């Protein structure tokens, strides 16, 4: 079996999600190659080559792949698949966009968001926001798989794969990049953070995220998250959303502040190692899954928490 892993990157840095998809690919078993498609992405190819477990890195550097547009990228991957039995990618928004397009071009039914590899063709995956877990067997000759990154450890460094430059595929000319607005933050990335402080509707405004959530996140070196309600209300932008249809996280510590705990939110964070809930409503469902619950007014408790943590360090 030869497996192609699609690298997640921003042309400068290889994302940790790639190392996790690599671990899933290794569990399937076989020779593993990593595809780095980008523009000015030589350093990403070097980082991929250093991952432990990859035999080869295919590097395609071309304007067509500068922004990860699905149409050209899917053509590139599909063209390579004659030599591969499976293609595996982390379930990031970019791979979620591209991989089903690859699957349909190959006439393969994709298996999305796998949680474990039971055998080379059998996987578990969540359905109904993680309220049921299915074991499924992919019967297509080729496999197209996306990986829930929180369910797999990241492969380490120490590899020294060869890097092979490959030619671009044709330009489908269907779409073009206009621009992007990326959140800039010095905090750790949400999906790989060890600690997350997350706010919900109870935080009541974007300003309050700065006033009550940020100081605690700063004291802990934590990432900030938000519930759908907080994002819908415009307190935080979409990239902060944790939940069934947002980001799935599993940090060491998740502090849910003013979040009631709708099943759609729990779907995105219930695999966290330790969950803390701070909510003034003692009936809030979040307390049913929290390791430590504090019934309190967050506007009083959060400044106190920031102060306590300041003392502690």
């Amino acid at each position: 079996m030869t497996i192609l892993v699609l690298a997640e990157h921003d042309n400068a840095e290889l994302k940790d999600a790639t190392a996790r998809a690599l671990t899933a690919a290794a569990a399937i078993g076989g020779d593993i190659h990593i595809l780095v498609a980008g523009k000015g992405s030589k350093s990403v190819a070097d980082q991929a080559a250093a991952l432990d477990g990859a035999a080869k890195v295919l590097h395609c550097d071309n304007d067509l792949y500068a922004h990860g547009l699905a149409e050209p990228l899917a053509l590139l991957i599909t063209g390579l698949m004659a030599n591969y039995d499976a293609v595996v990618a982390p379930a990031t928004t970019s791979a979620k966009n591209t991989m089903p397009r690859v699957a349909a071009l190959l006439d393969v039914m994709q298996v999305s968001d796998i949680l474990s590899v039971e055998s080379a063709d059998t996987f578990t995956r969540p359905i109904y926001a993680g309220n049921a877990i299915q074991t499924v067997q992919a019967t297509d000759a080729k496999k197209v798989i996306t990986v829930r990154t929180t369910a797999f450890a990241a492969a380490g460094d120490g590899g020294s794969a060869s890097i092979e430059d490959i030619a671009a595929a044709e330009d489908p000319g269907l779409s073009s990049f206009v621009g992007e607005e990326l959140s800039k933050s010095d905090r750790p990335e949400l999906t790989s953070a060890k600690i997350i402080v997350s706010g919900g509707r109870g935080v009541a405004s974007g300003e309050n995220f700065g006033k009550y959530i940020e100081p605690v996140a700063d004291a802990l070196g934590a990432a900030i998250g938000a519930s759908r309600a907080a994002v819908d209300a415009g307190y935080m932008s979409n990239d902060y959303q944790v939940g069934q249809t947002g980001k799935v996280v599993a940090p060491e510590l998740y502090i849910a502040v003013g979040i009631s705990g709708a099943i759609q939110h729990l779907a995105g964070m219930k695999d966290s190692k330790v969950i803390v809930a701070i909510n003034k409503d003692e009936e809030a469902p979040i307390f049913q899954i929290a390791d430590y619950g504090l019934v309190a007014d967050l506007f009083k408790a959060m400044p106190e928490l920031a102060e306590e943590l300041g003392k502690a360090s």
Partner: protein
Amino acid sequence: MKVVVPVKRVVDYTQKIRVKSDGSGVELANIKMSMNPFDEIAIEEAIRLKENGTASEIIAVSIGPQQAQETIRTALAMGADRGILVQSDDIVEPLGVAKILKAITDEEGPTLVILGKQAIDDDSNQTGQMLAALLGWPQATFVSEVTPDGDKARVVREIDGGLQTIQINLPAIVTTDLRLNEPRYASLPNIMKAKKKPIDMKTPDDYGVDISPRVKIITTVAPKGREAGIMVESVAELVDKLKNEAGVI
């Protein structure tokens, strides 16, 4: 322009699902079913395009059991013009759905097909992208803003790092994210009117599509539960527990 909007009948998002003890699946008997929330957003977007004069006709398509007719009626009551039900009592996988939708798209010739980005039952997030591939059309997934302009459209997409704006040629596939719009409720007069709107009854065979599953479901089990922990009385106690008991800070 014509707009096709596929709508899926799923377990209502407020329902707590129960996994059958024999591992055969999720209990669907006597449970409230509704239109997939992302598909409601798709219908709403199509209606807004019609209201601003961009779209001329909205066709709601559902693939599913006889009862999926109710889901189409909901779309018609919101403002879609007519429906197509492709009846199947079997589970139709995203790839099979995409193939049926391709046949319908070939027949109807829409300029846009707007789909929900994922269904909240199987959480696959595949159908729109697959349909785009089969048609050879551009795709704009996870969209929070769509602005058609002549033979192109400008779309804003929700991505991991923030927002991305792309331009796509039309015809195209759009899949909806949560912030695209807030779907309307159907008014009583519109619910009455919807009863008179036509729904075409079809089967996958009518489109020559083989829907036999490619992914075999072996078992379905409930996830490992998470027990409630303890309540603390104060912030100081919380910090103490996190430090000395959980050891996470």
